[in-house]
């Protein structure tokens, strides 16, 4: 070591690409803990597809209700979207809350040139990366199960990523307002689980009683599942419907990010 | 200058000498604790008399906490004999613990409960009735000045408040013997003084206190008698005053030199005072009269940056006994 670096000129906290430092930190952590997430990422889709898609699917006597495709083919994109939702929501809850409260990672960050904006954007990027991994692995597994047959199936990948990010960023915005972690399990039980079960994941929403069916249209996972499934199966590629589904998911990301800026700032700049 | 043997009146007053007349509350002979091959406590002997405030003084890792846990009947000993409240903690743990109050080194408060609930349920662990537990809890909250936080959860409390709550909790069963493991470590000065004041009141009421500390001032404030531990062994025993008189001088002259100068002083300090200790950042000279030595040093042409005369303390005793300072 010969030269001592001259002090960098003050840049008012603005990085050229906001959020990249925060993303770097997330990736660094992930490099250490990815083995722990391995089960959720790879094994649980295999288990779900085997149990529900193959074994339970063998009990389905008539596939017309499932768009005329084998139950496994119907189920796979549904589970993929639901898994994306779950992963996104988890990433927006406990690990994020730890950064606010238990580990105080974010307090440490804003003591450096990193700004709240960097933290929000970095977290958003991280959600994209994490979901790309989770849904990407799922794609491969489902493909090997023979669940994907349409030439457009690879378009289901970005669709599932967006679905997961939409839930992740909205949950993150909310998590920043929480003082304790108590309510997370309530969210999972009363929001995530019902969405998982009633958004067309396991059966078409036409099976729901007519009086409650319209509610599904207002549940964000329904749109994510519908979009992912249409692309994966390659049926019903009606551009208007697909456009509506996509708009709902993108709208959620936009709104979630907008509020995340507000709630993160309120939490960290005090 | 009084010799060490004349320093015993305090010991006598606190029961150290008259121990033959009164059965000690704690008696340890050859007490040993091993973790695998590591010896944490190496065959130590001590007695604690009823009503006494007894201290274990020593640096981190000296074996204080291991000793306390054995006394508290939560850690089986590896060798030697130990009697607490007249019985063997390895055999009658539950009945001993029923009469102990314990303030562990790290707070073991129930963070899922509120301040008041912590005291209530702790009372129940000792089989107090709810009514009894509640009335004692109220009294104790008053005693440690936490009554306005009764329904707060534990987590948001400051370190000092948690410590006071732990002390209140340890008193819920009106213990005969209170074990305090580093009761004020990590507290700010104000909180420390409040804790000391409360412990002093307990002592006045006749509660037997056993505490560990690595703070000299704490030991001097609270302890009638103490043992100095280092590397799993007891290296000295006595009252704070007698230890200072036995192992140190009345005064200490502290000299601080500009950076780099201290290393060049070879020989120039010889003969000053009774003893010279060189620490990394300063030189300590032990003498009956610090001012005299300061003048002598000046005559020798020594020009320290600062020079301070102070009373000798247990810190100096420890330095003398182990050659190391207490808090590194």
């Amino acid at each position: 070591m010969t030269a001592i670096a001259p002090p960098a000129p003050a840049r008012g906290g603005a990085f050229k690409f906001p959020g990249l430092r925060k993303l770097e930190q997330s990736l660094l952590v992930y490099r250490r803990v990815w083995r722990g997430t391995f089960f959720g990422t790879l094994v649980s889709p295999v288990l779900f597809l085997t149990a529900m898609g193959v074994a339970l699917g063998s009990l389905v006597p008539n596939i017309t209700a499932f768009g005329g495709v084998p139950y496994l083919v119907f189920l796979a994109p549904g589970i993929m979207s639901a898994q994306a939702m779950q992963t996104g929501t988890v990433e927006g809850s406990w690990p994020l809350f730890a950064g606010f409260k238990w580990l105080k990672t974010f307090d440490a960050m804003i003591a450096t040139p990193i700004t709240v904006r960097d933290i929000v954007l970095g977290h958003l990027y991280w959600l994209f990366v994490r979901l790309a991994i989770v849904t990407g692995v799922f794609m491969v597994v489902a493909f090997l199960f023979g669940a994907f047959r349409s030439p457009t199936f690879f378009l289901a990948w970005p669709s599932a990523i967006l679905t997961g990010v939409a839930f992740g960023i909205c949950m993150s915005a909310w998590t920043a307002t929480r003082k304790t972690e108590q309510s997370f399990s309530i969210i999972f039980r009363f929001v995530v689980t019902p969405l998982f079960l009633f958004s067309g994941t396991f059966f078409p929403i036409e099976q729901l009683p007519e009086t409650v069916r319209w509610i599904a249209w207002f549940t964000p996972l329904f749109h994510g599942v519908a979009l992912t499934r249409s692309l994966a199966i390659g049926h019903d590629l009606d551009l208007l419907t697909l456009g509506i589904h996509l708009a709902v998911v993108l709208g959620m990301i936009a709104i979630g990010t907008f509020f995340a800026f507000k709630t993160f700032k309120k939490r960290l700049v005090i | 200058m009084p010799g060490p043997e004349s320093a015993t009146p305090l010991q006598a007053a606190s029961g150290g000498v008259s121990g033959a007349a009164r059965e000690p509350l704690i008696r340890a002979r050859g007490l040993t604790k091993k973790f695998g091959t590591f010896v944490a406590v190496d065959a130590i002997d001590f007695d604690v008399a009823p009503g006494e405030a007894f201290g274990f003084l020593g640096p981190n890792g000296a074996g204080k906490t291991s000793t306390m846990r054995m006394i508290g009947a939560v850690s089986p000993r590896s060798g030697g004999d130990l009697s607490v409240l007249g019985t063997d903690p390895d055999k009658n743990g539950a009945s001993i613990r029923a009469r102990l109050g314990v303030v562990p080194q790290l707070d073991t408060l129930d963070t899922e409960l509120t301040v008041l609930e912590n005291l209530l349920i702790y009372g129940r662990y000792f089989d107090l009735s709810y009514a009894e537990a509640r009335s004692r809890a109220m009294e104790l909250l008053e005693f440690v000045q936490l009554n306005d936080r009764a329904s707060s959860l534990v987590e948001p409390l400051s370190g000092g408040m948690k410590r006071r709550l732990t002390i209140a909790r340890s008193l819920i069963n009106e213990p005969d013997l209170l074990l305090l493991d580093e009761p004020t470590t990590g507290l700010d000065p104000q909180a420390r003084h409040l804790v000391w004041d409360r412990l002093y009141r307990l002592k006045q009421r006749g509660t037997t206190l056993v505490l560990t500390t690595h703070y000299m001032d704490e030991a001097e404030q609270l302890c009638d008698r103490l043992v100095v531990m280092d590397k799993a062994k007891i290296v000295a025993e006595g009252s704070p005053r007698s230890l200072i008189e036995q192992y140190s001088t009345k005064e200490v002259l502290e000299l601080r030199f500009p950076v780099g100068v201290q290393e060049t002083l070879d020989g120039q300090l010889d003969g000053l005072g009774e003893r010279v200790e060189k620490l990394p950042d300063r030189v300590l000279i032990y003498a009956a009269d610090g001012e005299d030595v300061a003048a002598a040093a000046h005559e020798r042409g020594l020009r320290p940056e600062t020079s301070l005369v102070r009373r000798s303390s247990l810190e100096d005793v420890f330095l003398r006994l182990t050659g190391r300072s207490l808090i590194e």
Partner: protein
Amino acid sequence: MTGSAVTHVLPFGSRHSVHILERNRFIFRRGWMVIFSGFFEPLFYLLGIGFGLGSLIGTVAGPDGSQIPYAVFVAPALLATASMNGAVYDSTNMFFRLRYEKAYDGMLATPLNVGDIALGEVVWALGRGALYGLGFLAVMFAMGLVPSGMGIFALPASMLIGFATAAAGLVAVTFMRSWQDLDLLFVVTLPLFLFSGTFFPITTYPEPLRTIVEFSPLYRGVDLVRAMTTGVIGFTQLIDVLYLFAMGLLFVFIASRRMGKMLLK
């Protein structure tokens, strides 16, 4: 080694264990919503999978081989699973108490022994399982999913599952070092949930696999509860009961040993 920690590690606790229940009741008063909400999880599954998907499946082979509506088949399995999940959730709480909160260390400074804590926690989990069982069973009766009057015995059956799995969960958490390790519980419970004859009869499996599944504790629980609600009861149910009871006792014993090692160093 003089003496021993024997008195400390009485494996099955004493009357003092009741204080652990009192302690948990304090928490329940504030956090009842979390516990209460656990009741809804099986209900959602029942509506979604049992009825929603079930309407497209129709009937499946029940315990005696005769065809029964899919919801009647799935409901008892969801009850059994809820008992297991509730117990596992409780053991994650115990993990935080054991590793991070040090609340157990505080308890051990009192006349309480490790066995008291282990037993108290497991009994608490048991009571909680009873609560869930009662609620869900009432829903099942109301929806006409319990063809047999023997169905009321599904309640003690679900408590037995809670007891066995809570004890096992407690042993598991004594081996865990960080909260990341808690995911390992999920590694065990998810396959159990999916493959223990919950959603489809184990006759769907090829032979060697079926025998393996028959050793799974949740399969024994599902088998027991389903036998009660459908009224098809036989010798196998005796095996179920003995299996779960022995498992619970064994793991409470191991748990107190393990906790003793951890807490009484």
